């Protein structure tokens, strides 16, 4: 019996016990206005621009507000902005802030704070960098108005300012936003619906957020990052639990109220508990991936990359990552998130069966001239998703007849090693595994993994003028039809180039006690509108 099986068994036994109706401990009954939440990871830092991990973004959305916010339909809606005006040539954007905006230190939110915040954000965010590249002027006109003047139109401005992808353009006081974007802020004065209690922060264990009484929510109904962010609990405590069995037991015992991302193995047991609700957390899910190094042998040869893509069975990958619950995964013949406006399967025929074609792939590999060069496959063992994918890949490459050098390591090492451009035999790499949040893969704007601009591209440094041309076409598209056409061509070009290898689309669950209501699906946990009964 391995550890995973053991903890599943123990948690399962716990589930049975709890469904028998044991009394909840006093902790959950006595503090109805405090919501105890188990986040997906430890909140190790708290600067949404400096550190772009999802957990930091999720916590930051509680503390800082934004100019626009994406709603559940994927449309950016006004949030801190009352109105905006675009000049006829599309080069000048003038924004007006809505009244009543305050920082947590009691100061008013002014246009100069917004200018400083956008300046810091645009130094780090891929869309921000694009805007900055054509920026002529970003200035505060008066206390509530600011203007952004560009040298070429940027039609996706509202999307850039309201997107869910990290880094988000959160609004901070000017003195904090003037911090170098590559240095961490040390003061956490927010503009959002809750205050971060720095004094109670124990990194690795606990983070506490308290309702900000002076926050003025919008009048519209809440929808993702848009609408009225009304807090119905006084306090939210994030309790970090590295052990999934402990988190499962704590949720069953009523010691915590909401677990963001239960281990798939434990979900059937949680579903069997009459005190709990379990549902898909983020309908946009995740895209599994492995990246090949396009500038080093053997994957500098497009035919070798295509052979690997042809052989891969997404079904194998998804079963390894998400288990046998087929509601949790699907074959993905492309690079964009299923169920979103720009989803396409154009050019993805090679992946459509989900089972791969090993014999054809072997033939293609032979044609490619592959000469038994070593494939250094770097796999982080401390991340269940990368480990599962890595195990499948090694098997796949061996079946293909490739010379695999499997390097089992941790994510910290993968993060450093993948930046090296040296040959695999000299400390470099041939392939590594990762995954992308589906929310990041809805369009090319904040999706660096899809770019193929060579030296400037994401790790692996793919180069494909066809891919890049279609990225530009999407940015320049005037309507949804044009956008869809561009994305179809982009998908086809990326499959041909094997910009990266998509291993499938998978979802994850979230679980909460029935005493909690208002939990909604989305790319991050939204706490506004969430209440808790005694």
């Amino acid at each position: 019996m391995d550890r995973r099986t053991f903890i599943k068994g123990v948690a399962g036994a716990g589930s049975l016990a709890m469904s028998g109706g044991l009394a909840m401990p006093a902790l959950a009954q006595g503090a109805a206005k405090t919501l105890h939440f188990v986040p997906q990871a430890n909140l190790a830092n708290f600067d949404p621009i400096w550190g772009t991990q999802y957990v930091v973004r999720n916590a930051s959305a509680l503390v800082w507000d934004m100019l626009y916010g994406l709603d559940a339909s994927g449309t950016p809606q006004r949030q801190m902005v009352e109105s905006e005006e675009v000049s006829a040539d599309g080069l000048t954007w003038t924004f007006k802030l809505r009244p009543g905006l305050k920082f947590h230190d009691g100061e008013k939110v002014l246009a100069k704070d917004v200018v400083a915040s956008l300046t810091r954000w645009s130094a780090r965010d891929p869309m921000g960098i694009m805007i900055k590249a054509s920026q002529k002027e970003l200035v505060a006109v008066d206390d509530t108005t600011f203007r952004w003047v560009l040298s070429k139109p940027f039609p996706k401005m509202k999307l850039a300012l309201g997107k869910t992808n990290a880094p988000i353009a959160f609004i901070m006081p000017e003195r904090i936003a003037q911090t170098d974007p590559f240095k961490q802020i040390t003061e956490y004065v927010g503009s959002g619906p809750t205050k971060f209690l720095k004094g109670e922060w124990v990194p690795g264990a606990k983070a506490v957020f308290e309702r900000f009484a002076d926050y003025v929510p919008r009048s519209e109904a809440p929808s993702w990052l848009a609408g009225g962010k009304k807090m119905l609990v006084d306090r939210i405590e994030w309790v970090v639990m590295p052990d999934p069995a402990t988190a499962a037991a704590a949720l069953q015992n009523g010691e915590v109220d909401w677990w963001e991302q239960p281990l798939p193995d434990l979900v059937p047991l949680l579903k069997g508990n009459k005190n709990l609700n379990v549902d898909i957390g983020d309908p946009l899910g995740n895209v599994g991936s492995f990246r090949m190094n396009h500038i080093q042998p053997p994957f500098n040869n497009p035919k070798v990359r295509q052979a690997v893509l042809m052989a891969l069975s997404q079904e194998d990958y998804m079963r390894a990552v998400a288990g046998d619950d087929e509601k949790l995964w699907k074959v993905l013949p492309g690079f964009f998130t299923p169920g979103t406006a720009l989803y396409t399967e154009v050019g993805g025929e090679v992946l459509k069966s989900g089972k791969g074609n090993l014999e054809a792939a072997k033939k293609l590999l032979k044609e490619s001239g592959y000469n038994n060069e070593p494939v250094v496959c770097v796999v982080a063992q401390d991340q269940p998703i990368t480990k599962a994918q890595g195990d499948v890949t090694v098997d796949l490459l061996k079946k293909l007849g490739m010379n695999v050098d499997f390097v089992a390591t941790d994510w910290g090492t993968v993060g450093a090693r993948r930046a090296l451009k040296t040959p695999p035999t000299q400390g470099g790499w041939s392939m590594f595994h990762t995954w992308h949040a589906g929310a990041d893969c809805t369009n090319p704007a904040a999706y660096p993994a899809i770019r193929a601009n060579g030296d400037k591209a994401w790790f692996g440094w793919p180069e494909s003028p066809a891919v890049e041309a279609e990225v530009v076409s999407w940015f320049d598209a005037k309507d949804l039809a044009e956008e869809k056409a561009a994305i179809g061509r982009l998908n086809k070009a990326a499959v041909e180039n094997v910009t990266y290898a998509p291993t499938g689309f998978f979802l994850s669950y979230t679980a909460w006690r029935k005493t909690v209501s208002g939990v909604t699906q989305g790319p991050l946990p939204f706490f506004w509108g969430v209440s808790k009964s005694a």
Partner: protein
Amino acid sequence: MLGYILRRTLSTIPVMAMVGLFVFSLLYIAPGDPAAVIAGDQASPEDIARIRANLGLDRPFLVQFGEWGWRTLHADLGTSIFTGLPVTQMIGQRIEPTLSLMVLTLIFAIVVSVPMGVVAAWKAGTWIDRGIMTFAVLGFSVPVFVIGYVLAYVFALQLDWFPVQGYTPITQGLGPWLGNLVLPALSLGCVYIALIARITRASMLEVLAQDYVRTAKAKGLGQKDVLFLHALKNAAVPIVTVIGIGIALLIGGAVVTESVFAIPGLGRLTVDAILRRDYPVIQGVVLLFSFVYVLVNLVIDILYTFLDPRIRY
């Protein structure tokens, strides 16, 4: 004696310096990059390089080590790369839960294991001895996390006597503090009980074969007095030694126990820091652990003189 204590205390300085150099060198040559972890998955290599430069991680080894050493000499362990908080503050936040867990485990283990070992030696070869030694082997063989899960299942989920996880500071009441620590201390204590019980038994068996024990029995002393007043005192040196050595075992076990019971202690801080390559935190915690270990062994050495008057320093 005072001179000895002073000499031993001073001798910790070179030991700590060696530990510091060793840890620093190990972290420097180990693969991994905190800047890459901070920057996130979407960051470009240029972003990572700028963060690395801002953190000062691109400077030569000797410069970094020199700066760290100088700061450490001034009782400044630096600032966490990730949280931006002083390492001393982070250790301060975490030291109470770990110290509480270790002290409670130690008390529990000694209270249980020493009588177990004494009884096993007294009843050597009987079913009582075999039962105790079977328990000791089990305690040694079953991983701490397994014991932890079983205890949590029985006493937290089934019986609802204790919470599953967390820690309540002692300032918020002895009851809640104990409530959170009972199960972790029991889990962690099992391996320690096994170790001490085995050593106590072996040591007692040797002492019980001595002439003076026979004399004590011949004088008509009760069994309890013979075992606990005469024999145990003379068998105590190896027992105390193993308790000291076991502190290292306890520190290692605390890492797992704190994870299983979600206790915000130094063990979890260490693991988190290692996974993220938070160098200042790793260095601070390892220095603290090594200092505690050296100190405990000093205390053990001093205890010898009380347990065995023949020992002089």
